[in-house]
Structure formats: structure tokens, C-alpha cells
């Protein structure tokens, strides 16, 4: 046991020792502030409470998905099945009796389904040695097939329990309900990542697999758990998203896998693992949703979003690099 502690401490100090210059460390936050300043100066409506509320309500599901994606990317993996899982969970939600009594069972079923999908991803990656990209790509395609086979490809008429609309669009003490939920999840998973041995193991497994192995950490279990956390959070995100959108088609979560990966990467993570964290990822999410909002407020055609988003993703990710990394 003592060996573990020593190694973990060493990993800690080495991370501190490589403290990056200010801009590299806080680049994204500076960028976010600049973006908000641009938004405020170009569009007076940006700061209107109604707009801020809308923006955060729209962004909460992405926040949840990015929260989960952070765990997987810390293990030097990535999860492409997030969006497909969100859509699948949305379809599950509409396939159950549209009664408010069913909200809790729907959440439990969705979480169990997510945990199963995450386990399959993690199992493929650790035990079958499939690269994370391909394992989760395959899960994404399989889920898509199952979903369409179930719905026969028809858009669902959206028989959701009415309570879902409240979860997705309602406010509590003038703060969006889904933002409360996101806040709660952030709290829980920040504790998991920063205050538990699991969190420390996760950083070590991702950042220094050899040290993790030598200190007797079961890397496979840590990684499988990360994929399960990611998938469970994606399932919850899917339910809040379907509550926000109100109706379900088979593609409701499309794009969330790549957006969440982009947010996490902007937040200072590395595909080599062991770098980045929850708050960086959330800042990445804010950058993305502020861009969406700004493009709409300025009255640009919606396609402009894609162009701006693409440029910003490349630009923001380039902040974090050390030469020769």
C-alpha cells in the first residue's frame, strides 16, 4: 500500500513541477472571457436574463455529456457512442407510459442501460484490446441500428411524461432545472475525481500507465469504470435533452459525441491521457454554447455556427501545447 502512496505523490509533484506558463494554463478561460466581452459588446441582448437562461438551459445536456467524456479521455481513450446513446435513451423514454409516475423508473432504466453500454465499451477496450475509437464507434453504430430497428425509423410522436418538459425547460428559483441537475452532477463527480482514491488512480492510469501498473492498480477496472461513468452521464444527458427538445426523433443526440470531445480537448485534456479536468471541460462547453448563442443573436445564418465552431475548436486546442509535446 505504501508503494501506491509514494507513486501517487510522485505523480502529483511531477504534475506540479511542470506547471505551465499562465497563458497555457488559463488560455481557455481568457478566451472565454474575450468571447463573452465580444458577445456583450456586439449584442446588447446577450446579457439579458432571459438569454442567459436560454443559453444555459440549452447547454446543460452538453455539460453533462462533457463531464462524462472527461473521465474517459483522462484514461487516454475517447467515447464516440455518447450521442448515439443519448438518442437511444430518448427513444426508451418515449417507449414507456407517458405518466409522471414513470419518470423515476425511466431514469433508473436509462442509467442501467447506460451502465451496460459503458461496460461493453470498457470491456472491449481493456479485455479485447480494441482501440477506444473503434470500440465506441462500433457501439455507436450498433446502438443506432437497434434504435432504428425498434422505431422502424419513424420519428416518435413524443409521448413523454409531462414532467420531462419541466426537467428540460423549467426553472427553479429562476435557475433552469437542468442546470441544478448539472450542478449536482458536477459536485458529485468533482468529488469522485479530486477527492477519492479512484480519481487519483484515474489520473495515474491515464498519465503514467507504467507507474500505475507497478503500484498494483487494476488499470482495467479503473478504465471500465470510466467508460461506465461516461455512459451513465450520457444517458442522463439524453433524458434532459429529450425534455428540452420535447419530441424525439432518432437523431436527437447526434453531434454530442464530437462536441463533448471538442469541449474536453479545449479544456486542456490530451488524447495521451492523464491531463485535463472537469472545470476545463465545462469552460470548453461554455465556449461552444456562447458561440451558438452569439451567432443566433447576431442574426447570422445558422450554418455560420459550424464554421465558427470549427475554427474555435482548432484555435482553442492549440493553446495547450508545449512545443515538441
Amino acid at each position, binding site marked *: 500500500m505504501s508503494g501506491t502512496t509514494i507513486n501517487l505523490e510522485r505523480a502529483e509533484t511531477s504534475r506540479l513541477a511542470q506547471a505551465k506558463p499562465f497563458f497555457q494554463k488559463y488560455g481557455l478561460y481568457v478566451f472565454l472571457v474575450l468571447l463573452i466581452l465580444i458577445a456583450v459588446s456586439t449584442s446588447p441582448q446577450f446579457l439579458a436574463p432571459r438569454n442567459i437562461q436560454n443559453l444555459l438551459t440549452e447547454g446543460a445536456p452538453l455539460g453533462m455529456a462533457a463531464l462524462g467524456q472527461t473521465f474517459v479521455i483522462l484514461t487516454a481513450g475517447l467515447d464516440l457512442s455518447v450521442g448515439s446513446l443519448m438518442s437511444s435513451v430518448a427513444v426508451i423514454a418515449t417507449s414507456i407510459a407517458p405518466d409522471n409516475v414513470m419518470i423515476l423508473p425511466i431514469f433508473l432504466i436509462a442509467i442501467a442501460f447506460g451502465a451496460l453500454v459503458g461496460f461493453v465499451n470498457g470491456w472491449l477496450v481493456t479485455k479485447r484490446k480494441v482501440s477506444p475509437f473503434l470500440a465506441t464507434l462500433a457501439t455507436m*453504430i450498433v446502438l443506432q441500428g437497434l434504435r432504428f430497428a425498434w422505431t422502424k425509423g419513424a420519428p416518435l410522436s413524443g409521448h413523454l411524461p409531462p414532467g420531462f418538459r419541466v426537467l428540460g425547460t423549467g426553472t427553479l428559483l429562476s435557475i433552469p432545472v437542468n442546470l441544478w441537475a448539472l450542478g449536482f452532477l458536477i459536485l458529485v463527480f468533482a468529488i469522485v475525481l479530486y477527492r477519492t482514491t479512484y480519481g487519483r488512480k484515474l489520473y495515474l492510469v491515464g498519465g503514467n500507465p507504467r507507474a500505475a501498473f507497478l503500484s498494483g492498480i487494476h488499470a482495467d477496472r479503473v478504465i471500465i469504470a470510466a467508460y461506465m461513468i461516461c455512459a451513465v452521464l450520457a444517458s442522463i444527458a439524453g433524458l434532459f435533452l429529450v425534455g428540452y427538445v420535447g419530441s424525439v426523433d432518432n437523431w436527437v443526440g447526434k453531434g454530442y459525441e464530437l462536441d463533448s470531445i471538442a469541449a474536453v480537448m479545449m479544456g486542456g485534456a490530451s488524447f495521451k491521457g492523464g491531463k485535463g479536468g472537469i472545470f476545463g471541460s465545462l469552460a470548453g462547453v461554455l465556449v461552444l454554447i456562447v458561440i451558438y448563442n452569439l451567432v443566433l443573436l447576431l442574426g447570422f445564418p445558422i450554418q455560420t455556427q459550424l464554421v465558427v465552431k470549427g475554427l474555435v475548436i482548432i484555435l482553442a486546442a492549440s493553446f495547450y501545447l508545449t512545443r515538441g509535446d
Partner: protein
Amino acid sequence: MSEAFKKVVSKIDPSIGIVSGLVLLLVIAGFFVSDRFGTTQNLLNILENSVSLGLASMGQTLVILTGGIDLSIGGIISLTSCLTSGVINGNSSLMFPVIAGVLLLGIAIGALNGVLIVRLGVHPLIVTLGMSMVLQGVTLMYTLEPPGAMPLSWDLVAYGKLLGVPVAPLVMVLIFIAMWAFLKKARLGRYIFAVGGNAEAARLSGIRQNRVVVFVYTACGFFATLTGLYLVSRMGIGDPRIGGYYMLSSITPVVVGGTILAGGKGGVIGTLIGVYLIIVLRNLLNFMDITSFYQWIIEGVIIIVAVSFYVERKKV
């Protein structure tokens, strides 16, 4: 069995053996499934369907061999197919200048991917994802509907026949053979494997890695543009959303064909057989009246099964 034959067999990558065996099994199964499977018409159908996926996967293979990935293929296909039919707009005198311009554009986009990756040091997945969003956005700003029209003569690219043999599938196979020879014989080709296999060793042996990386993304942009031009010929018009399918689908034949995502191992012949595997499978499932929904499930399972047979990871 003679020694020479054994030597040849032992040199073939086992993944190529597995994937060829699967194609063979599917073909045999095809004859049992439907009388129409073995007809000339169906064979031509399979060959024609393989061209666009083959061209897109060709570029993807080169990129993956260096350990990278290109998610912008779809964006390049959408943009180039729309610009081609949109600008030409049925005017045959514009055809050659526009096509040359579009090819240059695709090459420039690919080169830009490569330069951004080596200069910014950002992971290829993020650079090409960003690029794909930019390109898709620009395409949709240019047009929301299939734009313009192509002169009839451009049909020849997709439907032209020489002595009854369709030319495009044949040219696609020839391109694969040429690229195989290039990877085996040319110095640059061997550098591509070296950069993907062991970047540090490649650097120490004096290979200018950055140039190799820029080259593969440039080539990928070129092949994606060829895919776009072929699709314009096949459908007679560009389509702003056609590329989306190729973004991830271009990766499947590559990995099923035995090229590993970590780079340095695999090759274009495996990809070619991987393309036929996917196209024959789809053809077969169509004969069995299985909808595309179940086809997705099967495609996902094939990726997992194929890949977990190969040793995907080379580093701990």
C-alpha cells in the same frame, strides 16, 4: 507445397487472409441466398458501389498509417461535389477549369490539415474535426439544396465502359495497386510506415516527419476530392450533405483490412478487400430484405469482431 509458395504465403499479412476469407464466405453465401446474386448485373453493381468508398478509404489509409486520422474527408466531399455542379451549372466549357480548380482546392485543404497538425501540434482528430465543421458549414452557406447541373458528358466518369467493362471500378483498383507499389518501393512510401511505426526512430534516422505528415493529409484531400467528383458523376449533381456518411465510414474498411489506428502497420490492399467486404455484405443483406437498420448492427459487430482478432495495440 513448394518452398517458394510457402514463403509467399508467410509474407501475406494474416489480417488480409482473414478479411479475404470473409469476402469469399460472403460470396459463397450469396449464391445460396439469391439466384440474382451471381448475375453479371449484380457483379457490376457491386463493383460500381465500391468506387466511392474505395477512393475515400484510400486517403484515410495513408493517414492512419502515420498514426493520424482524417475526419474532414466528408466535408471535402460535400464541398467539392457542390462546387463542381454548382459552378459548372450545365456549362460544358467551364467543366475542365472548374474540375481542375476543385482538385487544387481539395489538395490545398488537405495540405492545410497537415500544416495545422504539424505547426500547431494539435491532435489530428481535433484539427480535422474542426476542419470538417468549417467545410460543412461553408458548404451549407453556399447551398442547402443540390446545386446546378453537370454536362451529360461527365456521366462517362461513373458510367463509362470499355469493351463492356466499367472503367471507374477498374481505375479504382489500379489506383490501389499503384499506391501499394508506392508504399512498398518509393522512399516516401516507406517513410509513411516509419513515421507511424516509431516516430522517434524515424526522427533519429533523419526522416523529415513533418513533410511526411503534410504529404499524407494532402493526398487524403486529393482522394476525397476524387470521391466528390465521382459522386457528382454518379448522381449528376452535387449534394451538400452527401459527405457526412464518409466521415466515419471511410475508416471501417481501413481497420477491417488490418491497418491499425496506432499507425505503422497495415496497407492499402487490406483496405481494398475491406471495401469489398462491406459492399458485398450490404449487397447480400439487401437480397435478404434486411433493412439498413439491421445492417448497421451487423457493421458494428463486424468492426469489433475483425479488430479484436488483430493485435490492435502495439504500445502499452
